[in-house]
């Protein structure tokens, strides 16, 4: 087992062919609705050095462009208020960054944060773990290898944290993430995921029903791999913070139909 270096990861990501525009037709068809819904304040945050999954950033960018969703690409240091803020493939690297995202959510933005921490080094993961707990009350655990036996940096990361290597859930040979919000969708995994803590976050082990109400729990898991929650939705002030512990962007880049449908739902329902 060896840790995948960032350079190697970037190299692999760059080698992956990106989306087929034709696969995005479905998303494009819904573009006009989305445009009306999210006004003109969709921000796509390029976290620069802190974006460890550039393929994911490219996937979101292409999906938004194909759907004709107006958006602006900005850096992490200049994030301003927006209705919908996408942060693909990043690691929370500083309290300033975390505070900015938290503040924007509390003021009414929907912040979708896709973690790339499973692909970062141990220290970066620990910082993200700390900041997520501090600023959002989200408690994450060591990354899971979803394909046991595959070379994995996550395994080393978990071991280095003093724990045993954490393999994926028992039926990890079925590589899917089951979402129940914003729509019921199944998306392929991306080899590693960051689980959320059941106990610490008070999640039920029973699958959530996709019911919208004013009495929704403060923290709500929205996607699981088998029984393990890997994505959640947190209400913060007037807005929301959506944590994706399983990357969605690479599937947008590869043209995964269900991933596109999920983004479409996310944009139209958030």
């Amino acid at each position, binding site marked *: 087992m060896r840790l995948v270096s960032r350079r190697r990861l970037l190299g692999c990501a760059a080698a992956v062919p990106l989306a*087929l525009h*034709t696969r995005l037709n479905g998303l494009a068809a819904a573009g006009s609705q989305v445009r009306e819904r999210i006004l003109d304040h969709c921000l796509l945050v390029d976290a620069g050095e802190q974006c460890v999954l550039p393929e994911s950033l490219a996937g979101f960018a292409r999906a938004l462009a194909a759907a004709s969703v107006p958006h602006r690409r900005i850096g992490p240091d200049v994030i301003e208020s927006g209705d919908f803020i996408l942060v693909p493939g990043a690691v929370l690297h500083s309290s300033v960054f975390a505070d900015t995202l938290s503040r924007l959510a509390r003021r009414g933005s929907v912040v979708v944060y896709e973690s790339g921490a499973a692909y970062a080094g141990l220290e970066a993961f620990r910082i993200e773990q700390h900041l997520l707990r501090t600023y959002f009350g989200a408690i994450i655990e060591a990354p899971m290898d979803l394909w046991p036996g595959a070379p994995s940096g996550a395994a080393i990361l978990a071991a280095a944290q003093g724990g045993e290597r954490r393999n994926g859930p028992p*039926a990890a*040979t*079925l*590589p*899917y993430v089951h979402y129940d919000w914003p729509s019921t969708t*199944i998306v*392929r995994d991306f080899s590693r995921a960051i689980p959320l803590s059941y106990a610490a976050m008070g999640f039920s082990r029973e699958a959530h029903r996709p019911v919208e109400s004013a009495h929704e729990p403060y923290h709500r898991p929205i996607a699981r791999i088998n029984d393990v929650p890997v994505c959640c939705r947190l209400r913060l002030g007037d807005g929301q913070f959506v944590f994706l512990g399983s990357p969605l962007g690479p599937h947008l880049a590869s043209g995964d*139909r269900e991933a596109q449908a999920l983004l479409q739902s996310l944009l139209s329902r958030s």
Partner: protein
Amino acid sequence: MKKSIGDNMIPQGWSFEHGLELIKKAGYDGVELWLGDVPWFQMKTTDAEVQDLLRKVESAGLVVSNVSTGLHWDTPLSARDPKVRGQAVRIVERQLETAQLLKADAILVVAGLVTAEVPYNEVYQRSVEVIQPLGDKAAQAKVKIGCENCNAEQRFLMGPREFQLFLKDINKPYVGIHLDVGNIHETGFAEQWIEIHGPNITRIHLKDVKKHRGRCGEESVYTNLFLGNNNWPAIHGALHKVGYDGWLVAEMEDRYHFAKDQQFYDTAAAIDRLIAGRL
């Protein structure tokens, strides 16, 4: 999902009615009719005779899941000879006509055949050009043309994205893929084909494959469900992911040597397990 099996599986010497009785008794919901492969369903079979076939199917408590044919192996849609191509087109048209008569909404077509004499680029271009107008006829008939992934046998459209490009080039909503999960062999993974093609799948053919046998040995590379190398839990998962709820059609190319009717029962039970995900 619903279960079906081909009438070309009916043991030799049995009548169509006898075979249908067995198919029903074994628990299938439908039957796949093979144009040109069985004595009761040939190119010369008249419309009235086809309607009689339908009456027999319905009397047995079944429906026709789809109309397939193996005739394109000898009469390819991609043939250089325009006369042969014309015959191949007529076969597809007859499939569409009979599918309508049989109240089925899908047919299986072998889209092209690469040989030493007829090279890949020719086959690709010709197949697209031949199938496009057939796609319009299929739309009029409201019967989908499912181009089967015959992969190694065809030496054509070996990968799922290449197949996707082929369908895109044809660009007809009534032309999709009849996906055979046993035909992919060592060149890929059936579950990934399912994921990529999703709503473009017209029907699923089921069989298992023993990849290590290769294609040139004396033993068949194909085998019964769950005996080969297909990852059936992954196939179940992929069907679930893309929301496939159509026909699963058994195509058992390696037949039982004895008690031939038993293969119908065993295969039906295996498909039930696949549908239920008890794997």
